[in-house]
């Protein structure tokens, strides 16, 4: 958390001079994430590694750069367990994914409109963490090892959503975005003689409120 706080503070410092004359938006959102699994191959067979579905929450700090263009600094945490499974067995390990990124939002309508659809794209970093209780034996450990450690990975995000103005200063937001990153192979580590490759798509749907001032 210390690292995340520092990054957030740095981002605020960078963004602040450019938007002194702009509207600000702060808000919070919650939703759920759905990730793809990746195949782990060994001479004995295949298994699927990835993350279970979990709750996602986050906060945002937005700035209106132009009438239809805004920027957002976001932090979110995804409570998704690490998971590996084959046709008969599965194993999970408590996990968390912390994300911090900056996105550019392009709105279809100007800021005065009550309903504003938008598309977004951006980038940042994700911190994948295994936080479960370790034990000498883990099922399917011949494929991959769900590990109590953490790993920072660059991430690209893109998606879209809609803002609905409940009042001049309160917005209801719905959005769907995809986090696209390398698979965290230190947290879900392929076993010796196992092959794991691929990219991780984490599709997150969220809803929330934000306040404009």
């Amino acid at each position, binding site marked *: 958390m210390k690292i995340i706080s520092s990054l957030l503070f740095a981002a605020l410092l960078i963004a602040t001079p450019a938007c002194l004359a702009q509207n600000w938006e702060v808000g919070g959102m919650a939703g759920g994430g759905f990730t793809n699994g990746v195949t782990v191959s060994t001479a004995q067979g295949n298994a699927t590694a990835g993350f279970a579905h979990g709750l996602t929450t986050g906060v945002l700090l937005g700035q209106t750069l132009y009438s239809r263009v805004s920027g957002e600094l976001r932090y979110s945490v995804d409570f998704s367990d690490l998971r590996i499974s084959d046709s008969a067995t599965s194993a999970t390990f408590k996990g968390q994914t912390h994300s911090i990124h900056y996105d550019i939002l392009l709105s279809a309508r100007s800021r005065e409109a009550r309903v504003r659809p938008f598309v977004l794209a951006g980038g940042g970093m994700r911190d994948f963490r295994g936080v479960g209780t370790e034990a*000498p034996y883990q099922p399917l*450990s011949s494929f991959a090892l769900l590990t109590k*450690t953490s790993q920072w990975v660059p991430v690209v995000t893109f998606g879209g959503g809609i803002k609905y103005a409940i009042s001049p200063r309160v917005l209801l937001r719905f959005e769907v975005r995809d986090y696209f990153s390398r698979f965290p192979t230190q947290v879900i580590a392929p076993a010796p003689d196992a092959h794991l490759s691929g990219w991780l798509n984490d599709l997150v749907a969220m809803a929330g409120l934000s306040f404009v001032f």
Partner: protein
Amino acid sequence: MKPIFGLSTQCTSSVAIAVLAASFLAGSPAFGATFGTVVPLKGQAADLALDEVRGVIYAANFAGSRVDVVSLATRHASTALSVAPYPGSLALSPDARFLLVAHFGNFQAPSTTANALTLIDLTSGGQQMFTLGDPPMGVAFGADGLALVVTSTEFLLLDPLSGSIQVLDTIAGVTAKTLPVPPATFPPQITTASVAVSGDGNWIFGLTDTIYFRYDVLNHLISSVSYTATPPQGPRVVSVSQDGSYFTAGWGLFSASGLLISEFSNPSGVLNVGSHAIDSVAGLIYAQIPQAQSQSGGSSATTAPPVLMVTDAGNLTIRDQLQLPENLAGKSLLNRARDTMYSVSDSGIMILPVGSLNLAHRLAASREDVLFLGNYCTRQAAAQDVVISDPGGGATDFTISASIPGISVAPTSGATPATVHITVNPQFFANQSGTVVAALHLASRSAVNLPADIRVLINNRAPEQRGSIVDVPGKLVDILTDPVRNRFYLLRQDKNQVLVFDGASLQQIAALRTYNTPTQMAITFDQSSLLVGHDNSQLASAYDLNTLQPLPPIAFPPGHYPRSIASSGNATLAASRVAGPVHTIDRVDLLGRLAFTPTTLGPWENNINVNTVLAASQNGSSILAAMPDGTVMLYDSTADSFVASRKDFLALAGAFAASDYDLYVVDYHLLDSSLAPVGDLDASSGASSGFVFGGQAGIRTVVPSVQSSGVIERVDPNLVQAMRPTATAEAALTGQPGFAFTRTLAALPNASALVSLTVSGFTAIAWNYDASVAPPTLTRVVNAADGSASVATGGLVTVWGNHLSPVNIATNEIPVPTALGESCLAINGTPAPMLFVSPKQINAQLPFEVEGTASMVLHTPGGTSNLLNFTVLPVAPSVFHSGVAGPQTGIPAVFRAKTNQLVTTANPIHLGEAIMIYATGLGTTLPPVATGFAASPSLSAAAVAQPAVTLSGLTLPLYYAELAPGQVGVYQIKAFVPGWAPTGMQVPLTISQGSASTTVMVRVIR
């Protein structure tokens, strides 16, 4: 009134024990300390009442016409309450306002009777008297504030507030003593009754000469049961558990409904000596029960020193014995904190701080048995250690001495805690056959308890003797195999336990609690349950054999003690000792959990010898009953009746068994399907002990003499001949007075081995013990940790070969024996301690005395092996590959110190934490630890050659490298993995000492 409720206790069997105990105690030279403080009173206390509100205890001074008031703080009788003559019992109301005194003034004419009650208001000091027509035998207050008064004819209910008395019920058949009585008659012998209330005040139980009763305080209901008891129910005291679910009365422990759960063994039945009190929370009963033969003629004087037993409340198993300054002599009470017991005693009141027992000096030995197994590799002196301690942790003086020469102890005296080194000179016992049994006697001037002797067993086997001796302390009385589960069960009578052993490893896997004095076991015909009969309980214990959990016990008819049980395909029968002139065969209803007594045994009377034993055939077709007077009977499950009974012999004893093919064995006689003798086996070879049928043949054990090894021989029933007698390492058990029959031999499933109850515990004998035995051959010796060829002095090794041992056997003994099973291993002539032997593998420790070129030789009954030459290095570190994680085995024994969990790929080493590595082959230590001995937990034995531990080349800081405390030949290395150490899935962890090194792969993460 209900029918007669018979009770008795068996006396004759324990005479010898009592005499021995008496002689031991009389000869005990140095136990001078006692537990408890006597507050003397002038006169004799008849009853007690504890008033914790006022900090006093009231004692009814029977002949002094007063109630003595003893301060709990000063422990002095400071004042007295003057009351009418002959206060025989007392009770304090729950609110501590009223003290009720019952006066037993039952004088014969022409004297005037003075039966009365005095109600004392302790707040105002006022007294109110109630005259009674009959003598009051006991009083007690219930939780409702009303007092139950028991007279010889009525149950009365007294309301202390109104002074009204209500008749609850009448009593018949109780005869009160009349005054005057002869001199030296004590209050319990005069009132002959005791009444006590449960801790919650909801139940009152009482005992007189002829009835038990229970009073339900909440519902004002009385239920009483008549009884007869031999000997009488003494001490005449009743104690009740907190919730009234069980109580002790006299020498018996009863359920609330009156079932005799267990009884104290061999009581004298004297009414005025002894006492007891129940601590329900701790599950304990404190009791002094005088033993038969140790009391003299009904007076309070006894020849044996008074001893307070601390027993298990469930089955009266003795946990400790404390010497008392004098006899207890009536009621005992525990205070609310359960830390102090107050008892009527010979001189007044005894105060026993049972909650502070740990502050009293006591002695305890770390081992019950010390077994010395000599071997034919060497005849050098053997030594073992016993730790003498005070269970309370204090420093208690002790002396220790051996009962026979040839055994030396050092030191012979000292203060606890102390390690006593016991040395046996085998030359002293060189001409002794079998196992010599001796004792180490502990004594102390300050200890208040009576520690049991330590049994010393010395066996110097000859090469031709067969069997592997396994030490099992205690008195073992029965053995039974479980063919379904490859287990066998031993019955340990002195601790009231069934010991469960695994048939493959011969290791104990469980202990099941029985009731008091278990005698014989049986497996039900459906193989699901184990039943256990007892000599001191009217219940048969039952256990689920799949879960090894207790099942509801089987209740036998009142007065019936099921001593021998057998289960056929149609009926489960028990031979019961009965409190009365006729002993019976009872039939068990397994579903109803009770037993009943058939009126006849087929055409024969149901009247058997008290020492009758039963044996069922394995196929459930029949049950043999054998009696020491020579009578035999046969139950046939098809006819569901007894079909044969004969008496062809003057006496029978020893082995008894039933085959699946209508052949029976009792003693050395073979009997046919009509129990007609078909022939006798040779009786001159020794006393009969055990017999098992296997296939169409049998195997028996006999004991030539008390001080000899045993003999096992095969029996051909067709030829009526015992064949190929073979000496065993030690003798099987034989019968005792009162228990003439013995079941001491059992065959493990699949004919894997025979197990014989023997002097030291049991002896495992290979099924083919009499086959010609091939000489052993040694093929190679490797490091036991990882199977590598490098071995070091003091390290653990695995020896591979053929015919290394006739049976599989492992040991946890420390020091590790140099003879295990029937094998002994020598390296350069020095015996090597062995942890495991089997036909193809031996695990052993290389002696520290051996280094350089070495020759190994193995001795077995088959002869002497080839010489195996190898090199013993000064150091050869190797990490044990003994870790197990789920289905994964062979994992290096590297542990994360923080969690004490095995390091695996799923549980990797984290940077910045410590690890513990278990290895062998690190060589000599400082201080040195003798071969076969474990390192002391209190003194680190560090490796002389300090190892270096590296992680992918990075040297790790070491905390220590030493012998693992409590283990033999196993070293532990604790190292720290710094934050800058390399990480990875397969990081080499290397332990090196000089040029010798070993490497294992571990996963390391941040």
